């Protein structure tokens, strides 16, 4: 309840977003007018079958793809009409990314991978060092900071990637199937860390996943079908198990197969 005040302004506002691919004769509507809001300190999951448009949505929000029409406001700023240079600046200052395949730089140590995000922001050395250690401790990777990515496990890699995403204190963390390449134990550790970041550090996470188990850690789930918002689930007072069951129900309604169950 302590974050009540901050929740009054949405950190992310998507309004009537449309994205078309192809030409006149062969038009694909990846996003067909989607609207929703995310408040500060929310942990939102985006679910949908393959081809439903969830990755396109994430790419539009992360500003590496531009929408055909509609608007995206992040922290009050309309990112749909920024130029390339402003977008780059916006990305490094306001957004944090976690990818399915970690995307760590294999030539850099874990420490350097995290520090790089701050170095790009031209932060002073002392601040870099302090922040890297703080975030590493938070995610339980303090002991592996000197190692190279090939020397650590997948779960550790993803926590390093998450550390890199949040070390700059972005307004919004975008996670694209972050547990996709992890075993269930590592996935659980990571999801718990995300929960902790949201609960204790007021981070805002938007996570795309097709996995009901991962989604059950969120506060709210957006279901997408054919480029439209199909349904949404709010966790409320449910425990994780109850929330998980509700998610499964919606998935079967959506026509998802049992493969999506973990």
């Amino acid at each position: 309840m302590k974050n009540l005040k901050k929740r009054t302004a949405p950190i992310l506002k998507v309004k009537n977003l449309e994205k078309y691919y192809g030409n006149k004769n062969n038009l694909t509507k990846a996003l067909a007018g989607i609207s929703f809001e995310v408040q500060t300190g929310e942990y939102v999951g985006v679910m949908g079958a393959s081809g439903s448009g969830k990755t396109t949505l994430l790419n539009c929000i992360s500003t590496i793809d531009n929408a055909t029409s509609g608007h995206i406001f992040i922290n009050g700023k309309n990112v749909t009409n920024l130029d390339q240079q402003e977008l780059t600046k916006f990305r490094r200052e306001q957004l944090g990314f976690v990818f399915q395949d970690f995307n760590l730089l294999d030539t850099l140590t874990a420490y350097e991978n995290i520090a790089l995000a701050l170095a790009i922001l031209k932060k002073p050395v002392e601040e870099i060092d302090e922040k890297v250690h703080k975030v590493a401790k938070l995610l339980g990777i303090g002991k592996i900071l000197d190692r190279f990515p090939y020397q650590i496990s997948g779960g550790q890699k993803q926590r390093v990637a998450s550390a890199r995403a949040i070390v700059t204190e972005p307004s919004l963390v975008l996670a694209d199937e972050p547990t996709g390449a992890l075993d269930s134990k590592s996935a659980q550790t990571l999801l718990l860390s995300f929960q902790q970041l949201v609960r204790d550090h007021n981070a805002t996470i938007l996570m795309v996943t097709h996995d009901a188990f991962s989604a059950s850690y969120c506060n709210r789930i957006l279901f997408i079908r054919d480029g439209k918002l199909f349904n949404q689930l709010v966790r409320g007072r449910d425990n994780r198990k109850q929330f998980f069951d509700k998610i499964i129900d919606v998935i079967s309604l959506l026509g998802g197969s049992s493969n999506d169950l973990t």
Partner: protein
Amino acid sequence: MTSLSLSFKNVRKSFRDFTVYFVTLMLGVSIFYIFNSIDSQQSIMEITSSQGAALASLNRLMANFSILISIILVFLIIYANRYLIKRRKKEFGVYLILGMSRRRVSQILVLETAFVGLIALVAGSAFGILLSQGMAALTAKLLGAGIVNFQFIFSVSALKKTLLYFGLTFILTMIFNIIMVRRQKLLNLIYASRQNEGFKPPRLALSALIFLLSIGCLAVSYSAILNSGLLSVALIWTSVISGVVGTFLFFFSLSGFFLKLIQRMKKLYFKNMNMFVLRQINSKINTNYISITFVCLMLFISICTLSSGMGLAKAVTDDISRNTPYDATLSIGAQYNCNTNSYNSYPAAGVDLLAEAKKHNVNLDSFAKSYVAVRYYNGEASSLDIKNGAGIDLNNELYYVKLSDYNKVMELQGLAPITLAENSYAVDSTTAYDKWIVMAKDKIIETTLTVGGRKLSASPERISSHSLEVAGNYTLDLLIIVPDELLANAPAKRDLLHIKYLENKALSEDLAVKNLSKITVEGIAERLETKKLVVEDSGSTTTTISYLAVYLGVIFLIASGTVLAIAQLSEANDNVRRYKLLHKIGTDERQINRAVFLQNLIYFGVPLTLALAHSIIGVIVAAQAINSFRGMNILDSSLITALIIVSIYGGYFLITYLGSKNVIIREYSRQEKEG
């Protein structure tokens, strides 16, 4: 889809990746053609028989060196090709997994090699034929031959040779490719891109130690060669071996050492993209230090060949005017016999060349405007203990000459006669020997000579250096000029007849050569040197040296540029993933461009820097060796060398930088399009 169309598509699709490979092949082919087609260039020139012979021997020399060059090119092509194949392992793996036979995959590869080779051969030959037109004009200028008619020059034999040599090279490459594909396991092909090189650099203390060791090796190498010059074979080998080992260790430890060093300077390390760039380079130099060592050594050879070759050529050109004070010199004298290490006998009274001319019915006035006969005497040979800079004992080339004879020579040259103070002697060197005479001056001043029973001391103001005869080569002669009467009983050693022609030089030359060759003295060899012959001879020497230097130097430059460019470009594709990520997390394009530039700059710059250090030492040693015979102007040749390096090596750098940048930018736009 047939193998043919598939391979054709592949070549077209990956043309960007092939660019450097293609450019190198094309340059190789055209350079090979140009330097093998030199003899055909005479079709546009008006040349004498001696110039024709020079061209023919130049062509033979180039043919011999072409064998060496083609070996280098074979290695280069196979090396470059190996990289291209390595990059496409996954593609081949997909072919195989789809059920294509290995035979068929090899077939595709063979066809691809044939395509690229064919295009390179055609384009390279065309380019070579085009360039050889300009080259012919240069050859004519260097040889001092006139151009009679500008016509299209085309050498069938050179083209045949080019086609044969490169055809063989491509066949070799094909065989190599087939072996490479056959030997690979499918598993490795499929997972080729995932293989990670987990190389951990040695600890700081160790890399610092190795770095110091390499510096030590280089110091040993430099000092050995600087102290010994080119005189001690043992020391030369010491220098070469410790130089190679030092270079190798230098690159082995360099990046690790500097990485660790800069890591300690946290402000610098964590500034902008520095950390990323340093790590990139480190990961590469660690895996590529062997090829970088080769690049450095090839650059060193290239720089040394170019600068000292052209320096030498320039020195030869500069010599011409100094070696030809008149139009001709006929000389006769005791010949040095290498086998017995002594002089053949020469009549003590000498040979009166003017009398001989009369005896043989030679009318000197028919071609000479003026002439002077001079006699050199054999003095007490070892009395003047002077050595030249290279340590060669000069006593064998020490002559005495009468003051009156010397003054006749001065008069012929239009110079003032000299006088000798009581009991003194003068010294003059025969040819452009001024550098040495300065070095020997102090020694001469201290020396007292006894000539004809009289003690003489040197007069310091009478130590000079003049060209005293027409000579093709440098002679190390030293003249001691003494009063006439002291040489009354001295034995003669050489007789010379210096001639200045009449107005019609060409006619005089013909007459002189025809008539003077009639003068023969039983049992003693005579020598006729004319200005014309010396100029032609020097022209062909200059051409030979500079062409050889450019041929070798440029090939080595291309080789080093290619090795770096191919390695960098093929890695740029691996780097795309890294840069894409940097772009995603908000690194702006300027920062990325800067990182790519810095990375390429260091990668090209570091071997060049060490090669330059090596070359400075190398050129100093070469200059010392050449300088002991003649003055060499290093500055001019260094400038030309620098120009060649900047244009070729710099060109490869530019291609690589722009290529890497384009690969990365291409990936962004693809990413943005695909979403």
